[in-house]
C-alpha cells in the first residue's frame, strides 16, 4: 500500500517538474517574471494538481477494469446492473466541491487583474501618478506611447521593473493581441474600443532573462502574424527615468555626423519621413503616425522585430521588405537604389538617444 502511495505521487511530481522551467526565460509562461504571471502560474499549478488527482482516480479504475473484466468465456453473461445512487451522488458532489476550490481563486484573480483604478486617478496636471503606456497595434508593428511623458516609441517597449505598469490597448487596422508570456497573459487590441490592464516586471527575473522579454501578437492578423514580435526592455527605475529624459531631450531630428549618414538623412527626409518620425513627441495625431517611430532605432534589439540588429539585415529589410514580412505596409512605398539604401542604413544606425 505504501508503495502504491509513492507511485501515485509520481505523476504529481512529474507534472510540477514539467511545468517549472520549461522553455526560455524570455518567452515562457512557465517561468513567471512578474506579479501577474505569477498569479496566473499559481492558478495553473492549482488547477493542474486538482486535475491530476482526477486523472489518477480514473486511471486506477480504468486499469482495474482493463485487467479484471476481460471476457473469459464465450457464454458468460454478466449481471445487468442498472446503476448505483450512492456512487452517482458521490461522483456528482465531489467534482462540484473540487470546482468550488478552483472557482474562488479564479474569480478573485480575475477581478485583481482587471483592477486598473490607479490609471484613472488623475493629479492636478491631469496625469496619472502610475506609469501608463498606450499600446497601438498595427499590421505588423507595435507603437508604445507614454502619455504622461509625452513621448512615442515603437517595437521596443521600455518599462521600469518592480512597479505596476498600466496599459491602454487598441488596434488601428485589424484586431491583434498583446502578449508578453513571461510577464503576464494577453489582452486583445480591438478596433472598436480601448482595453486596459496592468503588468508588473520582476527585477530579478528580468536580469535572468537578460533584461529583454519577447512579446508576441496572439491574434491572427494576416500573413505576417507569426512575425509580429516586439521586445520589452525592463530597466531599473533610475535607468528608465534616464531613458525617458534622453528621449524627451530630442526635440529636433538629430543631425547625422558622417558624410554617408548625412546623405542618408537627406534621402530619409525625402522618402521615409512621411511615415516614420525621428522625434519622439506625441503631438502628431495617431493617423499620421503610419510607420514605427525611429527616434531610438540604433538601440533596437532586432530589425523588423525578428532579424538580428545589424547593417546587413537593415539593408535586406529595406531592399525587399516583402521577403522579410509578407503583407507589410512598407513594400512599394519608396524606390531607392542600393547605394541610397546603404546611406539610409548608415543614418538609421546612428539614431540613438543613448550610447
Amino acid at each position, binding site marked *: 500500500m505504501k508503495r502504491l502511495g509513492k507511485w501515485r505521487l509520481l505523476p504529481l511530481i512529474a507534472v510540477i517538474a514539467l511545468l517549472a522551467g520549461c522553455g526560455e526565460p524570455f518567452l515562457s509562461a512557465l517561468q513567471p517574471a512578474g506579479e501577474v504571471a505569477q498569479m496566473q502560474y499559481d492558478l495553473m499549478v492549482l488547477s493542474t494538481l486538482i486535475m491530476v488527482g482526477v486523472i489518477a482516480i480514473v486511471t486506477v479504475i480504468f486499469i482495474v477494469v482493463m485487467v479484471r473484466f476481460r471476457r473469459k468465456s464465450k457464454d458468460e453473461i454478466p449481471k445487468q446492473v442498472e446503476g448505483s445512487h450512492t456512487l452517482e451522488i458521490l461522483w456528482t458532489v465531489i467534482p462540484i466541491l473540487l470546482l468550488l476550490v478552483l472557482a474562488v481563486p479564479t474569480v478573485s484573480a480575475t477581478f485583481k487583474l482587471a483592477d486598473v483604478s490607479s490609471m484613472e486617478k488623475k493629479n492636478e496636471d491631469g496625469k496619472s501618478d502610475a506609469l501608463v503606456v498606450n499600446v497601438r497595434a498595427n499590421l505588423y508593428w507595435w507603437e508604445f506611447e507614454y502619455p504622461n511623458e509625452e513621448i512615442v516609441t515603437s517595437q521596443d517597449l521600455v518599462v521600469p521593473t518592480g512597479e505596476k505598469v498600466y496599459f491602454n*490597448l487598441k488596434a488601428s487596422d485589424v484586431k491583434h493581441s498583446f502578449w508578453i508570456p513571461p510577464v503576464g497573459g494577453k489582452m486583445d487590441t480591438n478596433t472598436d474600443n480601448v482595453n486596459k490592464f496592468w503588468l508588473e516586471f520582476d527585477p530579478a527575473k528580468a536580469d535572468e532573462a537578460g533584461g529583454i522579454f519577447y512579446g508576441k501578437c496572439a491574434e491572427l492578423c494576416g500573413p505576417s502574424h507569426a512575425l509580429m514580435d516586439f521586445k520589452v526592455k525592463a530597466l531599473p527605475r533610475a535607468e528608465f527615468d534616464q531613458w525617458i529624459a534622453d528621449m524627451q531631450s530630442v526635440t529636433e531630428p538629430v543631425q547625422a555626423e558622417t558624410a554617408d549618414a548625412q546623405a542618408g538623412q537627406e534621402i530619409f527626409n525625402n522618402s521615409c519621413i512621411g511615415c516614420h518620425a525621428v522625434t519622439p513627441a506625441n503631438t502628431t495625431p495617431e493617423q499620421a503616425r503610419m510607420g514605427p517611430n525611429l527616434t531610438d532605432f540604433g538601440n533596437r534589439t532586432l530589425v523588423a522585430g525578428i532579424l538580428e540588429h545589424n547593417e546587413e539585415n537593415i539593408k535586406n529589410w529595406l531592399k525587399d521588405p516583402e521577403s522579410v514580412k509578407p503583407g507589410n505596409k512598407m513594400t512599394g512605398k519608396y524606390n531607392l537604389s542600393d547605394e541610397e539604401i546603404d546611406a539610409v542604413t548608415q543614418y538609421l544606425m546612428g539614431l540613438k538617444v543613448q550610447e
Partner: protein
Amino acid sequence: MSTYAQKKGVGAVLWDYLTTVDHKKIAILYLIAGGFFFVLGGLEAMVIRIQLAIPDNNFVSAGFYNEVLTMHGTTMIFLAAMPILLGFMNAVMPLQIGARDVAFPFLNALGFWLFLFGGLFLNLSWFLGGAPDAGWTSYASLSLASEGHGIDFYALGLQISGFGTLIGGINFLVTIINMRAPGMTYMRMPLFTWTTFVASALILFAFPPLTVGIFFLTFDRLFGANFFDPTMGGNTVIWEHLFWIFGHPEVYILILPAFGIFSEIISTFSRKRLFGYSSMVFATVLIGFLGFMVWAHHMFTTGLGPIANSIFAVATMAIAVPTGIKIFNWLFTMWGGSIRFTTPMLYAVSFVPSFLLGGVTGVMLAVAAADYQYHDTYFVVAHFHYVIVGGVVLAILAATHFYWPKMFGTMLNEFLGKITFWLFLIGFHLTFFIQHFLGLMGMPRRIFTFLPNQGLEVGNVVSTVGAFFMAIAVIILLINIVITSVKNVKVGNDPWGDGRSLEWAIASPPPFYNFKQLPLVRGLDPYWIEKMEGKKEMTPAEPLGDIHMPNNSFIPFMISLGLFIAAFGAMYRLDYSWGLPVLILGLLVTLLSMFTRSIKDDHGFHIHKEDLIDEDKGRKA
C-alpha cells in the same frame, strides 16, 4: 417501383443515389462526401505540420499557410466531422427507434445536397483566386480586410451548407418525437438516439446565430453594409458573440453524438446495460443546455470585463460535472462486465482517458485569469484537438468499424482495423500532447513559422512525426475499406454477436423499408431482452400489412444546385456584368424547384403485403 435486389447499371445506380430519399442511402452519401472532405482536411493538416516541422521553414508561403489553416478548421468541423456524424445518425437512429424512415425523407435528401454543394463551393476557392484566410472563426476586422474572394467563399459556402445542417437537425427532432416504435418510450431510447436528439436540438438553436452572423458578413463584404465597421457605427465584437453563440454549442453538436456512439459500443462489448442510464440521459441534456451558457469563455481576452469573465468562467466549470458523470458511468458499465476487445471497443476504451485529458484542460481553460496565458496559444490547439480528435474522430473511426456491417452487410478486417487503431492513437498523443507545453512556452496559434532559439524546435518536430502516424493510419483504413468491399463476405443480422438495440434485429444491410412489421419494444436494450429469453427476433407490434413508402425525387438536388449557382452570381456581381443575371438565375432555379415540389402531388407508393410474403419465401428458399 421496388427495384431493390436487382442488378443495375452504373448509370442507374448513380441516378438512384442522386434522387434517393432513403435514410440508409443518404447515410452512405454523407459518409462518402464527409470522408472525402476528411481526407482533404487531413492533407491540409499535413501541410501545416510539415511547414512547422523546423523553424524558419519555407515549405509554404505565409499567405498560403493562412489559407490552409483556415480551410483545415472549416473543412474538418463543417464538412467532415458533422456530415460523417449526420451520416451515422441517418444510418442508425431510425433503425434504433424502430422507424421505417425519417419523418421527412425529402428534406433529408435536401439537407445532404445543400451540405454537399456548400462544401464544394467553399473548396472551389482553391482554384478561383485563393481560399479564405481569416481562420475558421473569421473574426470580423480581419475577414473584412481580407482581399480577394476567399472570405466570400467562406460566407456563402457555409451559409448554404448551414441550411442543410439546420434542415437535417429539425428532421431528426421530428423523427425521434413522432416515429418511435410501439413501446419505445423516451427512457428506453438507446443513448445514441438520445444524443442525436439533443444534438439536433442544439443545431436548431445554434445555427440561426451563425446564419445571422454570416448574413451580416456577406452583406458587409458584397453589398456595402457596415455591421462590423467600427468607423461607421458597426462593431466587430458582435461577430465574436454571434460566432461563439453558435461555435460553442457546435462543439457539443459534435461531441454528444460521439458520446452516444461510445455508450453503444461500451455497453455492447461489455455485455452489460449502460450503468446509470437515466443519469447519462440527464447529463446529456444538461450538457446541451449549459452549452449555450458558456460561449464567452472563447472571448476572455476580448475585454468584456471581470464580471462577465467570472460568470462565464464558473458556468464553464459547471459543464465538467455532467461530463464527469459520463466518464464514471462508462467506466462502471465496463466494471463487472465481460469485455471483448474488438476494434470499435479498442477505440471506445482509449477514448475514455484521451477525452479525459481534453476535459481537464477544458477546466484549466475555464480559469479565466489563467486563460489570459492559454488563450490563442498551442495550449488551446492541444485542448481542442484532444476533445475533437480524442472524442469525435475516435468515435467516427469506432462507428465506422462498428456500423460498417449494418450499413454494407460486410465486416471490415479486424486485423487491419487494430493496426489502424494503434497507429492512430499513438500518432494522436504524439502530435498533440506536446503542444500543451509549446503553448505555455510562448508559441501562439495560427503562426506560419517560428524562429529558431526560442525553445520551440523539439516540440514541433515531435508533433510533426505524430501527424505522419495518423496519416498512415488513415491510409490503412482506406486500404481496409477497399479490401473489404472487394471481398464482400456477407454477414447476418447481429455480426458482433452482442447487439443490444433494434438495428441488430434486422438484416445487414436492412431492406429499404427497414422493418417488415414494426417491433414491440419491451424495455431498454430491446433486442438483448428478446435474446436473453431465447428468441431470435423481435415480437412484431402489428400484423403484416402494406407499407407506405416515399418516391425518389431529383428536386432536392435542383434546389441545392440553384443556390450553388446563385452564390457565384452574388460573389462576382461587382466584378463582372454577368454576376447579377447569374444570381437571379440561380435563385429562380431554386424557387421554381420549390414551386414544383409544392404543386406536384406526390403520394409515394405502397409495398403490398403479398410482395413482402413472396420476398420472405424467396429468401428462405
